[in-house]
């Protein structure tokens, strides 16, 4: 709890399964993602509201930290050498950011087509359209759609580079805490992971909460997790100095 300044959430909300939502998280706040029922997969994109051309960069996040998975201690890099958010808590040990998102064809082939007319709010949404729907609210579009994060999902590889989706990776109550180091447009969807082969359309809600973060000290584990992360924090501090 040391990294949170507020013990009770400032805000608490539930995004239903197979849906999408977005908001701006201000610097100095923690976004808590909770797998409400188990089996969740949450697609996420990030942009700088001041200049949305600055966005989450999957390659820089992986190569700066010499990792294929994301977990506690890692930071999420923007394409401008800065840190959008730090993973200050993770109950699962592995989150995916290399598999992209599901699209309409994929969802129809795997789980059939369910239109709004027949299923109302239980119609089958897909990650690609969900992201575009939210991006449009900020004047963004297809050109801004980059590699996304897939929280609560694990995709591993063997020695030959073959990818395998690990089902039943997450459980009810599994939690990830993201401490935002910059103001960030956060775009989320709760549509299925693109490699999920569950027989029924996977529909798992996401509980998310906001807390005030404790100040980031020089001894911060994420800031010190790698020389690359330390330098990205320095770039972020310079950015904030020039804003104020």
């Amino acid at each position, binding site marked *: 709890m040391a990294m949170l300044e507020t013990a009770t959430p400032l805000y608490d909300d539930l995004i239903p399964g197979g849906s999408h939502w977005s908001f701006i998280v201000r610097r100095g706040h923690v976004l808590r993602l909770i797998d409400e029922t188990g089996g969740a997969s949450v697609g996420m994109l990030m942009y700088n509201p001041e200049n949305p051309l600055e966005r989450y*960069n*999957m*390659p820089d996040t992986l190569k*700066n930290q*010499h990792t*294929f998975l994301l977990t506690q201690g890692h930071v999420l890099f923007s394409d401008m050498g800065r840190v959008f958010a730090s993973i200050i808590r993770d109950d699962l040990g592995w989150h995916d950011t290399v*598999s992209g998102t599901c699209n309409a064809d994929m969802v129809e082939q795997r789980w059939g087509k369910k239109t709004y007319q027949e299923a109302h709010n239980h119609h089958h949404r897909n990650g690609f359209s969900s992201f575009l729907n939210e991006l449009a609210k900020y004047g963004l579009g297809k050109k801004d759609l980059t590699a996304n994060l897939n929280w609560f999902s694990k995709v591993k590889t063997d020695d030959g580079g*073959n990818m395998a989706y690990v089902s039943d990776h997450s459980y009810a109550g599994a939690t990830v805490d993201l401490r935002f180091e910059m103001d960030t447009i956060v775009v989320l969807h709760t549509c299925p992971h693109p490699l999920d082969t569950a027989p029924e359309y996977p529909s798992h809600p996401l509980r998310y909460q906001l807390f005030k973060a404790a100040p980031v000290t020089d001894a911060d584990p994420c800031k010190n997790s790698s020389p690359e992360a330390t330098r990205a924090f320095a770039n972020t501090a310079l950015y904030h100095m020039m804003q104020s």
Partner: protein
Amino acid sequence: MIKKSALNPENAIFRETVPAGEYFLKVVKAGETVQILDLEGNQAADTLFYNAHNPTERYSAVDTIREQGNVYLTAGSKLMSSENNVMLEITADTCGRHDTLGGACSAESNTTRYALEKKCMHACRDSWLVAVTEHEELGMTKRDITHNINFFMNVPVTAEGGLTFEDGISDAGKYVELKAEMDVLVMISNCPQLNNPCNAYNPTPIEVLVWS
């Protein structure tokens, strides 16, 4: 997978040497084959592909690896677009493995990867930004610069979730060949990276060939 080319360089309709630190921009028509040749060895050719008629549709690293179920690219790999269409297929490869997870170097990523004072060193994203700015007719900007392929780069992923940058498995004269399935705009930054031991701190030229 090592697969040699059946094409003769003497029959190519186009050949151009691209020095390190330069960009290369050309439309390759559906049915044509393009070869990228590592002239001196262990050079990274950072490459983006766009639908030549609508650059909003572009190469997608994550869709490509997911659809083929493997994180490495080699002969037989189909390169997928952001709209889930096959853009090109790798038809020959004497290197055996190419990276599409590591992304391109930028002035900003040089600061985090190497040192804060490296920010004014030339980088791949700079080459692309110059390319799209010098070709206004394309209607492209930084928004269009997305995740690329690093031809000739070796970035192994371990079963435990590690990722490392290893010395290249390429060598002088090794190449990769791609057949276009749609009209594609090919945009290459021949990497100017001076900080990476993988190229022995020595960026070198590549050659691009096209056959009809």
